[in-house]
């Protein structure tokens, strides 16, 4: 981890991160989050390290790491943080940035969520079969074999009457939340 050349610390933090930085700047680097995280074993840098990089303005390093996408929202860190920082929320804020900027390494996650939300937008409720197939489609350039990994699962779900296959690409339904999504987009773009 040590680099020969010391990192020049620069205070100017990118604007995109400013809001998240505010959420965690009272951090005391106690490591409760790291010690609590069930996914820490799979992370390349620990959550505490991630927050520190955020405070030090190391944006590129943050997004080349896979730490934040590995957050499974178990809220252990939020529960235990002695400073009461909204850490799970800050993780999902990072995910939002990755989604918005469509960062390639994080596509499996961000696309997954996007397809899910598209399904919700269209029907008001999620259509599991539809959303899974659009997800596979969106990932086909990155991981064309992805559908195969889940094929047997699909079949088992079908057998258990857990997947409704009808009308996979149905029109906007009565319950459509399109207006809501539009309004949200409009409001969020204003800021």
């Amino acid at each position: 981890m040590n680099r020969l050349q010391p990192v020049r610390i620069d205070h100017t933090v990118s604007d995109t991160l400013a809001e998240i930085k505010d959420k965690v700047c009272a951090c005391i680097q106690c490591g409760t989050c790291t010690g609590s995280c069930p996914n820490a074993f799979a992370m390349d840098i620990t959550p505490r390290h991630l927050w520190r990089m955020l405070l030090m303005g190391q944006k590129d390093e943050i997004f080349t790491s896979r730490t934040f996408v590995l957050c499974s929202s178990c809220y252990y860190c939020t529960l235990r943080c002695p400073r009461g920082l909204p850490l799970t929320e800050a993780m999902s804020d990072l995910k939002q940035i990755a989604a918005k900027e469509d960062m390639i390494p994080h596509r499996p996650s961000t696309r997954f969520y996007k397809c899910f939300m598209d399904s919700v937008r269209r029907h008001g409720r999620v259509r599991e079969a539809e959303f899974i197939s659009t997800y596979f489609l969106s990932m086909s350039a990155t991981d064309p074999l992805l559908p195969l990994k889940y094929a047997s699962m699909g079949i088992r779900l079908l057998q258990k009457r857990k997947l409704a296959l009808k009308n996979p690409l149905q029109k906007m339904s009565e319950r459509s939340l399109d207006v809501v999504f539009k309004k949200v987009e409009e409001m969020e773009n204003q800021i």
Partner: protein
Amino acid sequence: MNYLYYPGCSLEGTAREYNISTRSFMKAAGIKLTELEEWTCCGASAAASVSPLLSSALPAINLAVAESMSQTENLLIPCSACYLNLKNVEEKARKEPGLLKRINKVLAEKNLNFKNRTKVRHLLDVMAHDIGAEKVKNLIKKDFSHLTIAPYYGCQCLRPYPVFDDPEEPVSMEPLIKATGALVHSWNMGGKCCGASHMNTKIDVGLELVYGILKAARGADAIVTVCPMCQMNLEAYQDKIELKYKENLNMTILYLPQLLCLAMGMSEDESGIESNMAVTKTFKEKMKKLPK
């Protein structure tokens, strides 16, 4: 006691047996559930990763509908993810008045108004505290004293809001399990994370977490859950885990109301057990051979 009822998307699909068993259980306990009219998706874990406002607006739509239906009744939610999303809005809108305004600006598109008056309740909370083990005990018809059940709570009904149970060492399922005569498996994995949507995006990480849980459950006859995502992660990947870790950890995974329905002597239709993906042979046999 009557409740408004928000099943959520999963309970219409992959978790249909949760929906079935919850309704059966409530009926047996003499509780009337009124399903929310035209309920919509809460946004699951996806909305928060896409848009913060949307992640508040989607649950708020349903809370606004609930308010319009009843001033007094609590909103019962079996799915932990939905529960947390709705609870989150309830809590946040109370603390940040600005958010309430912004939400209502969005909800105006649907001609809805959200006042934040409905109390969001998790199914487990209602079962453990409003109904209570004493009452459940009276409804039990079968003796499960030969079973050991591992209670698995998952994350989102416990954290970040410790509403009805200890968020580190939860216990609220235990009296209910004991009411069936079964023993409670002693472990400390009840509140641990199952990996959530990692199973779809980072499957290796997800498998590692589930492996840990299943391994710790060894010795129990079944794990009971109160969350569709937990249920799915625990039941649907057992073969993949066997392949990866070279260990057979097959385990029956039931929803908590399913276990109670079975103990009340309900049929397969009423408990929805035919939709479960992991019910071991041993478990089935034990179901047939009850102690006298």
